């Protein structure tokens, strides 16, 4: 028997609440009052005992943030973000633990419930767990450490490897890049610092898990991944938060640098609760013969605006962006990607899929740019949208700029509805309607889920199935 739409929605919330939507009591060492000013920024820097240059970097970024107007493009929901109603820094533990026993008991219980320590034992090369503003647990496998792989929270990265950080930090995304990057640069805390030495292949993924607990919290992690020539690393991140009636803000900055012949794969499964504004800047540089892949799955949040980008700076560099967005009731997923071909014979693919249901809005926003001199560049952009009902919305904003003649660029876009004929075909083979609908959706996103690590693919399929519960009313 088909479940009604309302029952299905109730089921989704009930499950999120139970699996991710819970929150802990607040036993914090420090919680900044709401709002942002010079004093808060100085306090964060002081807490972290940072070098003077970083303190100055933060204060300059704050000026940029305050001077810039809120963007007016993207989504009307952006007007709901109230920067004065946010806690910009919350400290839950003294310093990141190397053992789960060092993590405060209630925080550890949260990560237990989310299954992180278990996953670490089974299939990860390293784990970072961030709770509110800072990383509470960090560990990397000993054999990798011996090979010179650095996987630290960004605060420790700056403390222990200041020279490497200073050389690369904010070179891919300067603080004045946009208003949200300026905000992150002013108040950044936590995130990961990954450094892979020349020729080292990290075979199992490194994982970071980001958790917001407090109401009206702002989480501003900062991640920098440097892959030296010929190295390989796969970094996976996941995020969840409790469901509150008021808004939280997540605004990360992620910079990837793939040196000649290196390969970086960065996978995100974003499942924030629907009171979180997720406004993130992610950008990568790929030098000669390097490859950068973004696998970006957006399921949660009230509004996500995120366009991972790759600058193909060296000859034969390759960029790949796989993006899935699932927009349910009250959600707007404004996702996509940008590839900029700067050097000759560079190649890229952007493959974006969005699914909208229950009045949700999925947008693809992308840029493909081929600069003068990037002869022999090849690129393919495919964006497909699937609408599950008549109240939902899909938009596509593709921009293509080509300044070179000898290139090969393809662009395809489709918008489809789960068709009566597809459903009828499957149902005529004895498959119930809701099963048939799930099969169609799974088939639609399969090209991307197959790129995820197996455990994530399973989780992704489960989440999609959950969102799909009873969507045929």
């Amino acid at each position, binding site marked *: 028997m088909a479940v009604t739409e309302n029952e299905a929605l109730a089921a989704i919330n009930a499950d999120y609440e139970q699996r991710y939507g819970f929150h802990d009591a607040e036993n914090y060492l420090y919680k900044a009052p709401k709002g942002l000013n010079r004093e808060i920024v100085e306090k964060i820097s002081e807490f972290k005992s940072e070098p003077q240059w970083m303190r100055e970097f933060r204060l300059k970024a704050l000026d940029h943030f305050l001077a810039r107007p809120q963007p007016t493009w993207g989504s009307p929901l952006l007007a709901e973000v109230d920067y004065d109603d946010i806690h910009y820094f919350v400290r839950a533990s003294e310093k990141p633990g190397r053992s789960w026993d060092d993590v405060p008991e209630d925080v550890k219980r949260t990560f237990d419930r989310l299954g992180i320590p278990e996953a670490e034992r089974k299939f990860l090369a390293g784990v970072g767990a961030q709770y509110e503003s800072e990383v509470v647990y960090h560990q990397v496998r000993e054999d990798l450490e011996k090979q010179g792989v650095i996987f630290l929270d960004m605060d420790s990265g700056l403390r222990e490897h200041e020279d490497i950080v200073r050389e690369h930090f904010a*070179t*891919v995304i*300067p603080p*004045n*890049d946009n208003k949200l990057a300026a905000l992150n640069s002013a108040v950044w805390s936590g995130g990961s610092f990954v450094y892979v030495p020349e020729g080292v292949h990290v075979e199992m993924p490194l994982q970071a898990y980001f958790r917001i607990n407090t109401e009206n919290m702002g989480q501003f992690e900062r991640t920098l991944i440097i892959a030296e020539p010929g190295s390989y690393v796969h970094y996976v991140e996941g995020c969840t938060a409790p469901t509150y009636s008021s808004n939280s803000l997540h605004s990360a900055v992620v910079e990837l640098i793939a040196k000649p012949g290196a390969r970086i794969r960065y996978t995100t499964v974003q499942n924030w609760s629907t009171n979180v504004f997720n406004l993130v800047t992610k950008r990568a540089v790929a030098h000669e013969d390097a490859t950068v892949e973004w696998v970006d799955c957006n399921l949660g949040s009230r509004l996500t605006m995120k366009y991972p980008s790759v*600058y193909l700076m060296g000859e034969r560099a390759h960029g790949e962006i796989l993006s899935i967005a699932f927009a349910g009731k009250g959600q707007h997923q404004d996702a996509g990607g940008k590839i900029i071909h*700067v050097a000759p014979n560079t190649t890229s693919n952007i493959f974006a899929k969005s699914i909208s249901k229950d009045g949700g809005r999925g947008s693809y926003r992308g840029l493909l740019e081929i600069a003068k001199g990037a002869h022999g560049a090849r690129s393919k952009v495919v964006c497909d949208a699937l609408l599950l009902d008549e109240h939902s919305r899909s938009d596509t904003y593709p921009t293509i700029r080509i300044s070179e003649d000898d290139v090969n660029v393809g662009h395809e876009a489709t918008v489809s509805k789960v068709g009566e004929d597809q459903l009828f075909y499957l149902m005529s083979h004895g498959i119930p309607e809701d099963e048939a609908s799930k099969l169609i959706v799974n088939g639609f996103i399969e090209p991307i889920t197959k790129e995820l690590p197996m455990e994530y693919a399973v989780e992704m399929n489960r989440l999609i199935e959950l969102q799909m519960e009873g969507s045929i009313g």
Partner: protein
Amino acid sequence: MAEIIDVCPVAELPPGERRLVEWEDLEIGVFNCGGNLYAIEDRCSHDDGPLAEGEFDPEHCTVECPRHGSLFDLRTGKPKTLPAYVPVDTFAVIIEDETIKLEVE
């Protein structure tokens, strides 16, 4: 065809200072980095906005685009950070008769 234009007397552009000059439809920023003079086109290669009025760091010989933060090396015109990736035009600086001059074309 190259042409030589006057900027100002040397004494008027001490170390750490900059000056904007116009020639036909070009705007050029001239910078004094610790006694060495450099000139770049006043147009960011990222989105064509004005560049020379950005934060000038004479010690590292850079200027930061005020619009999106790309940092340019004044000696070469090359961007040291994204989002710009194309160098901006540079101009040869000549000192003659205690006057700073530029070679433009």
